[in-house]
């Protein structure tokens, strides 16, 4: 994302906020609309209109709901409105190079000093890190307890002494994520969220919102355009075994398979809101990360196959179909099957929380 794009999106979020389309269900004393159930309607309408996404996605989906649950009155007053308005961009600091899927294995240390904390450590996969003013930061305050040794902070990022943000290059050659280094960075104790040693509990609140297990209190727009149409269009203009791929039976079956999965995801979303058709309240919400990310991956892979020889081409090639979307989307799809708990971990969670099977770890 360029700075120009960033500025455009910040401006867009501000306009939406001013129009009451963001933060609609947040209490008005913190800058929200003070309504109930408005946000979903706003999201639907924005999705239908195909509006840009909300740049402060981490702020809206993670920071704001977590601060609402665990924050002090001062913290709510200080952070929520700027987050809703896009004035302050947030990033997430839960991932570390050594921790992988084991989120409790945080090595970033926060040591008390005066009325603050000295932080040292290394966070990775921080999207928006280079634009962010704030980070939700999970750090270790005790080595004696794995889970109870964690504490949750709201850490300043941009321009903060001891904090360095560096871009991480993806396998596609594009950047998009960052790593954030803390070297003797000082964080005031007033920026600690909830008690010392309660970081794991707070982080679970954050992830509950992120995983769609609860309604987003902030709201992001952008139900994506169904990608089946894209596949069909690609198949019309691609050739396979001498015929347009759209006439090739194997391609046809594959596209219809994708269309069925797409319909399943769409109707899962609808059914999740009909309690009488949901035996277990978490069964559908907890599936959405796995099904959504694998759907995108399978689609992109199919697109590469349909493109055939043209699937080798990078986006800057003049002959790359759909501006090189398919191979890039295929590779980028691993970001989604890996991030926010790999799909292997997601399947553990589903097996354990929904089906009640024994814990695998």
């Amino acid at each position, binding site marked *: 994302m360029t700075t120009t794009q960033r500025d455009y999106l910040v401006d867009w979020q501000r306009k939406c906020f001013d129009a009451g389309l963001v933060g609609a269900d947040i209490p008005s004393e913190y800058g929200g609309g003070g309504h109930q159930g408005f946000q979903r309607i706003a999201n639907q309408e924005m999705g239908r209109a195909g509006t840009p996404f909300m740049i402060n996605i981490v702020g809206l989906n993670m920071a704001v709901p977590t601060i609402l649950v665990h924050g002090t009155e001062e913290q709510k007053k200080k952070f929520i409105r700027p987050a809703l308005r896009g004035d302050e961009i947030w990033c997430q600091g839960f991932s570390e190079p050594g921790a992988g899927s084991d989120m409790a294995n945080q090595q970033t240390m926060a040591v008390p000093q005066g009325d603050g904390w000295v932080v040292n450590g290394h966070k990775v996969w921080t999207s928006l890190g280079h634009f962010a003013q704030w980070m939700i930061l999970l750090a270790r305050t005790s080595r004696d307890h794995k889970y109870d040794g964690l504490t949750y902070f709201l850490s300043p990022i941009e321009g903060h002494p001891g904090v360095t943000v560096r871009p991480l290059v993806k396998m596609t050659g594009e950047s998009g994520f960052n790593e954030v280094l803390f070297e003797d960075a000082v964080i005031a104790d007033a920026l600690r969220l909830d008690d010392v040693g309660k970081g794991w509990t707070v982080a679970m609140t954050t992830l509950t919102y992120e995983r769609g297990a609860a309604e987003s209190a902030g709201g992001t727009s952008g139900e994506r355009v169904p990608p089946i149409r894209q596949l069909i269009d690609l198949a019309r203009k691609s050739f396979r075994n001498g015929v347009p791929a759209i006439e090739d039976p194997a391609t046809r079956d594959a596209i219809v*398979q994708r*269309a*069925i*999965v797409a319909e399943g995801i769409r109707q899962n979303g609808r059914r999740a809101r009909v309690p*009488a058709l949901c035996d277990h309240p978490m069964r559908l919400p907890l599936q959405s990360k796995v099904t959504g990310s694998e759907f995108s991956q399978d689609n992109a892979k199919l697109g590469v196959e349909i493109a055939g020889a043209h699937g080798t081409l990078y986006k800057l090639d003049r002959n790359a179909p759909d501006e090189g979307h398919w191979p890039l989307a295929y590779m980028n799809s691993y970001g989604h099957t890996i991030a926010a708990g790999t799909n292997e971990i997601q*399947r553990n969670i589903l097996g*354990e929380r929904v*089906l009640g099977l024994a814990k695998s770890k």
Partner: protein
Amino acid sequence: MASSGAPKDFGFGEDEELLRDLARKFLDEQLPVEKLRALVAADPEAVYERGEPSTWDEGLWKQIVELGWTGLAVPETAGGAGFKAAGIVGLVEEVGRHALPSPLISTLNATYVLREGEPDAAAAWLARIADGASATLAITDARGSWAAGDTDVSAREEGDAIVLSGRASFVQDAQKAELLVTTARLGDALLLCVVPSDAAGLEFERDHIHDLTRDQASIGFREVRIPTANVVSRDAATALERAWPSVLVTVAADLCGTSEWQLQTTVEYAKHRKQFDHPLGFFQAVKHPLVDVMIGIDRARSILYHAACCIDEGNDGAETAARMAKSAASDAGAYASDRSVQLHGGIGFTWECDVHLFFKRSLHNQLLYGDGTYQRQLLAEKLLA
């Protein structure tokens, strides 16, 4: 996609929930799996080797008739309950989950087709079904083609009677049905007519099938004479085409029900059976496939209710949605069946374990009216035209 006016709850409201919950309670009480096993699986040699008729609980069927389930799909104008597809699908899921041996599914499917006949001609037959008559479709040729026009039965007119000759194959629950809803070719026309199962000239040849929870037959029509009044349509192809989404959705609902039983039963086994000092479910080689079974079921089930809703709304997308539902339910059923046997290990491979009852019912339903691949071929013609 659902039109923007489509009900958010698929039309599955209080009445539908009540019906489904009553069905679940009734079948939980009346047909626990131990009773099902005793009913249909007491003697493997009886069914398979000696070819005896499959057993079912006719007393239970009388109760079902009294509950009015045969009339659920019959329009109120014809004395039925005129229930929405969304509600019937909920009930059929329970039927599948209990692997109920009965002509209910067949009767519902015959009803859907009759509803598309000439209203005046069909009304009396629909009323009989609402009164408790069981019925089934006898519309398939010996090749097992699911296309509407493919019948081996031909008709000729003799005064005010119709004489039918030929053979209808793969007739579901033929042994239990009182009315056969039959297609027959008459010149260029394809008749849809009702033949009472005790009509003279009908020859039932019972198929030997694997599924223990239903029967299937091929029926010879040897100069079977019926009154012209029994002809409910002279354009059976259109009637079948209109009814077909409902038929597919009914089978898909049964599949979703059996698959859910397979999932829950295997999950229970994986919770309690220990291997290498851990419950089976500890192992990701057990846990993750069960999660994938669940994902498959949920995909099928959500599309199923969407399809039912499209039918109820008279939505043009009903056939697409119904074929998607049948495709997804067949594939989910195949995978759920597969893992239910494999993850039960040795015991799952035995007659004494109940999983085979559901495995076989599911397999039959996966094939019936076309499996996943078949549905996708027809979908491709619609979606990729």
